[in-house]
């Protein structure tokens, strides 16, 4: 059995688990509803007289603050609470099979959620003539953002047996990853931190990278940023699972 097959069988279990409780579905509906609100109401699509998805993308980081923790909270906390982690780790899997299988299942769910917003894109395309290439890059940004947040959430979920705690930790961590790119925050810390440190903080922020992609600019560095965040936290996730599994 190859690693791919092992990851696939973990993926299958974890992905279907989302459909066994109404929770993820509820979050999905809220997410889609709010995405619509951002696009049409808050974005003032009609008032601006310009059909594009800019407001939709601007809303995405905030919606992900709720959707992502809802998806990641159960990943490890639930297995630790019920003891199934002992089963998983004594089946012929490596920790990395489990880390990847679980992450990919959550990410697939997030991508399904994202894919369900495509009707918004279609609507905007029908109302006006948006830059479809830019929108595609924006969608890629959303997928990458949720991957990064999910990796952070999976990592934090391995620390606890309590899903609520895992949810809150992931929400707070994702929030911090976002706001460190905000001028208000950067201005505030620039008062007492050296310039290089402020720039480093800004470069570390998910918001900085998301915003440039959201505008349709496809830059390898932004993709690399999200890729690195995801990889780094998945690595840490495996380490924490090994460390905390028996508690």
């Amino acid at each position, binding site marked *: 059995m190859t690693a791919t097959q092992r990851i696939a069988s973990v993926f299958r*279990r974890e992905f279907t688990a989302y459909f066994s409780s109404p929770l993820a579905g509820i979050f999905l509906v809220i997410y889609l509803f709010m995405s619509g609100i951002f696009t049409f109401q808050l974005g003032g699509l009609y008032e601006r007289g310009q059909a594009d998805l800019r407001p939709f993308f601007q809303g995405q980081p905030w919606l992900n603050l709720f959707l992502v923790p809802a998806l990641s909270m159960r990943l490890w906390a639930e297995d630790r609470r*019920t003891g199934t982690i002992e*089963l998983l*780790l004594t*089946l*012929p899997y*490596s920790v990395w099979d489990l880390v990847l299988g679980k992450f990919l299942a959550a990410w697939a769910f997030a991508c399904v959620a994202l894919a369900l917003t495509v009707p918004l894109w279609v609507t905007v395309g029908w109302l006006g003539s948006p830059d479809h290439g830019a929108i595609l890059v924006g969608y890629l940004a959303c997928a990458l953002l949720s991957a990064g947040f999910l990796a952070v959430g999976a990592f934090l979920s391995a620390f606890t047996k309590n899903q609520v705690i895992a949810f809150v930790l992931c929400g707070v961590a994702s929030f911090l990853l976002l706001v460190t790119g905000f001028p208000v925050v950067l201005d505030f810390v620039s008062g007492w931190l050296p310039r290089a440190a402020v720039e480093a903080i800004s470069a570390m922020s998910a918001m900085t990278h998301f915003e440039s992609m959201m505008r349709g600019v496809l830059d390898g560095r932004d993709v690399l940023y999200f890729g690195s965040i995801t990889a780094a936290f998945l690595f840490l996730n495996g380490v924490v699972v090994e460390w905390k*599994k028996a508690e």
Partner: protein
Amino acid sequence: MNDLIVAKGLRKSFGSFEAVRGVDLTVPAGQVLGFLGPNGAGKSTTMRMLTGFLEPTEGTVTLSGISLADDPIAAKRTFGYLPEGAPAYGDMRVEEFLLFAARSRGYDDAEARRRVDAAIDRLHLGPYRKQLVETLSKGYKRRTGLAQAILHDPPILVLDEPTDGLDPNQKHEVRELIRRLGGERAIVLSTHILEEVEAVCTRAVIINEGRIVFDGTPGQLDAKASRDVTRNRLDHVFRMLTTSDVARRAGAAR
């Protein structure tokens, strides 16, 4: 080499507390080893090291000739394991859960289904196959865990309290099953029921405070009780070997 389980010098510390303090265990094919000991003696901790859930602080485990530390995935293919409390996914139906376990072992869908059907038959889970695991009674949950452990016909079985919480009929059936599985396999099962050792085991190991205090056949265990003890002889020996002050004296004598 017929020694399917070879554990050498196993130790496990949790912080400053040492739960397992040097356990050596070699189990050949055909042996059913009953692992006994008071609560907290270190049975589950030892079994968790045998199955690779916990890394030993010291010592090595070799399963079917494969080092657990060097090639954990290959070593894990050679055993079936029922963890303490028979954890299972509550949100899955019995059948789905077993299919997941079968696919985890690398069977394609058709073979997985065949294996699951066979395991369901063997443990008489037929009427419950579509039931959610979380709604099963304790006994049927344990049977589901057992089905998961045997469905790939492993040469090694590690069962942590397989009959705990079963009614007398089910206990009897599970013992029969274990006896039948015995043949070519190496089986380690922990239990608090001493008669169970007499009924199904070919070897008894008693562990106390992380150390092995008895290792022999059930007959030898029985022989340790003085002749004037007529009822519950094994209980008597068990108490003698594991009640702290007696155990300490025995340890000093060795």
